[in-house]
């Protein structure tokens, strides 16, 4: 008999039931797997196993040229591909020492924030589905299609956009964007309000999310959390503020911060960030409209990119948190080594710690609220 500090009882370790959750479990998003030891409904220990979507992106990066790698970044965080694209492009620009023209930066800002909204909408929808409320998911998806319309007008792809080039962007905002944005802003807010009415004011939802998987700020920093999951724990940290890039230091926006780091805080932070993103787009769009029509969109970039030897790390705040690229160049046209620092990788490794002592249902809620994107996790 061992004393079990989680359940505070003496228990024979043979009494535990091992449950294999995933990788085709409905709540595991296709490729995650958790091996959980349970006592009845309570999780005594949970060990996540990953690698079911390991596609060798880093190895491929060593064999691709710098430009060829951009499409691979799409396929990492496929919920907000544009943010990954820009993160990689900015890392290469830092490596090359390229200054991107301001108009291109504004186009990037607008598209990235749209991607952030789209990403958060998927998260909130899926969180609802995993807790048993299916309808908000559909409301959010309908609305998200309109954001996809804008992406599609920009360069023809809905999901994997291959947005931008190294040194700027390849195209200006689509003409239809100027008509679409005022109405889109309203529909985003309306969809959020509907979701809010269905979920945030629902007693069952509160019961299921408030206080579930609470995590302290200290632990979160120790485990390397970034992004909304860290902010939910009460740490006001956002690379858009702390290491400002582009024009983020000129925009007026709030950084929502939670208190307890529970599922509800993570959910609320996403809901509020959508609202802040709308504000940022409004400001960026106002700045964009002041730019002259023929302002350059691309910096002067050589046809074949051959950065000088050296290595650097650059990270930006993607919807999930800090997405960084560490690139070492050996002076050739291919990177010598690319290391991607995906945000949810660090978050997901604490999963066993997060769900210890909770119930099986909480595991599902916790996993959804962390927003684990397998493509980014396994690369």
């Amino acid at each position: 008999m061992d004393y079990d500090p989680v359940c505070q009882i003496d228990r024979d370790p043979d009494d535990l039931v091992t449950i294999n959750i995933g990788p085709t479990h409905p709540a595991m998003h296709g490729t995650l797997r958790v091996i959980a030891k349970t006592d009845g409904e309570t999780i005594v220990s949970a060990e996540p196993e990953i690698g079911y979507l390991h596609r060798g992106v880093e190895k491929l990066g060593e064999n691709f040229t710098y430009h060829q790698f951009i499409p691979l970044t799409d396929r990492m965080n496929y919920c907000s591909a544009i943010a990954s694209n820009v993160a990689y492009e900015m890392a290469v620009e830092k490596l090359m020492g390229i200054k991107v023209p301001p108009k291109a930066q504004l186009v990037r800002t607008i598209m990235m924030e749209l991607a952030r909204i789209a990403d958060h909408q998927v998260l909130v929808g899926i969180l609802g589905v995993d807790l048993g409320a299916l309808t908000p998911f559909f409301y959010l998806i309908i609305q998200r299609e309109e954001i996809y319309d804008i992406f599609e007008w920009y360069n023809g792809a809905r999901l994997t956009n291959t947005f931008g080039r190294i040194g700027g962007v390849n195209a200006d905002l689509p003409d239809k964007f100027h008509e679409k944005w005022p109405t889109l802003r309203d529909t985003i807010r309306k969809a959020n309000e509907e979701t809010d009415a269905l979920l945030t004011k629902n007693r069952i939802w509160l019961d299921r999310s408030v206080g579930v998987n609470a995590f302290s700020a200290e632990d979160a920093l120790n485990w390397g959390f970034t992004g909304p999951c860290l902010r939910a724990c009460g740490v006001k940290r956002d690379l858009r503020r702390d290491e400002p890039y582009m024009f983020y230091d000129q925009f007026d926006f709030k950084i929502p911060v939670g208190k307890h780091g529970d599922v509800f805080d993570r959910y609320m932070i996403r809901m509020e960030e959508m609202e802040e993103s709308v504000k940022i787009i409004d400001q960026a769009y106002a700045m964009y409209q002041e730019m002259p029509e023929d302002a350059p969109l691309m910096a002067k970039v050589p046809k074949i990119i051959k950065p000088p030897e050296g290595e650097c790390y650059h990270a930006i705040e993607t919807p999930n948190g800090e997405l960084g690229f560490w690139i070492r160049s050996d002076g050739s046209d291919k990177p010598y080594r690319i290391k991607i620092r995906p945000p949810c990788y660090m978050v997901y490794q604490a999963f066993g710690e997060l769900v210890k002592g909770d119930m099986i249902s909480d595991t599902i809620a916790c996993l959804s609220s962390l927003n684990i994107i397998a493509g980014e996790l396994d690369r």
Partner: protein
Amino acid sequence: MEDWIIDLIKVVFIWVWCLLIAVVMTWVERRASAMMQDRLGPNRAGPFGLLQPLADGIKLFTKEEIIPEKAKSILYVLGPALFALPAFSAYAVVPFGDKIVLGGKEIILQVADVNIGFLYVLAIGSMGVYGMVVGGWASNNKYSILGGLRATAQLISYEVPLGLALLAVVLLYGTFSLREMVFQQSGTFLGFLPNWGFFKQPLGFILFLVAAYAEASRVPFDLPEAESELVNGYHTEYGGMKLGLYLFGEYVNLGTLSAIIVTIYFGGWQLPYVDMSAFLGPVAYGIASFLVFFLKQAFFLFLFVWVRWTVPRFRYDQLMGLGWKSLIPLCLVNFFITALLVQLTV
């Protein structure tokens, strides 16, 4: 006509009617959920997709029958049957209409007017859990077993508030016969309200409704199957028509529960303020009473669907907490208040 022929006709009619409700409910559930989610829903099989349940049925019938190697094969086959049968059986005592006069013979629109119909409903209703437990255990799958266990705990816990809520009604009407209860609900209450159980037992009705949702294991109480947690819960390993039986049984259960709600709390086949037998012929009256009953039942069936697509799901401990800490004390309070009032008025 011989009595037993009439009884046989009634049994067959009710059986077919139950099946029909279950079949139509699958369609309603899909189309209604589509409506709530700004979708179209199935519309390829027949007009408005009305034949969709038929297509599903044909497909399920012609699907390969799999019995997993490690499953306990006899119980595995028995599970769905155990689940579906009690649901049908409970209908036997539900009065689905007043009476119809055919060829000078008075036919009661109820399969069996037993004087303990109320107890029969409770007893049969709690049989359904065997189907879930047996199915879950026989599948030899950890998710199924968890689903089965959840079902046991949940259904047994919610039997108590269900029974207690109904007991207050028994105090009120002073009878165990469901038919008798319906007759007592004619006329008006306090001069302007219909003399329905709902108005005399508002708290009891809400408690019963909540417990009924739990008994039917529908969202927000669908923990035994909890799709995102236990894959499909107790019927994870079932496919083909065995799965079909589970799905059908669920809708038949809904039909039964709605029928009981209507019978006990909403005056059965009676219209408020209007006495239909006064101006309708004997045959027409029988049919009209049946239709009124069906319409009331349909409303509650739709309510089940409505709630299903609106709210999230409880957690296991919250479910138990709600049952034991809130519903049962409230039921007891309701019971004592009713007892007091009945004592005072008599």
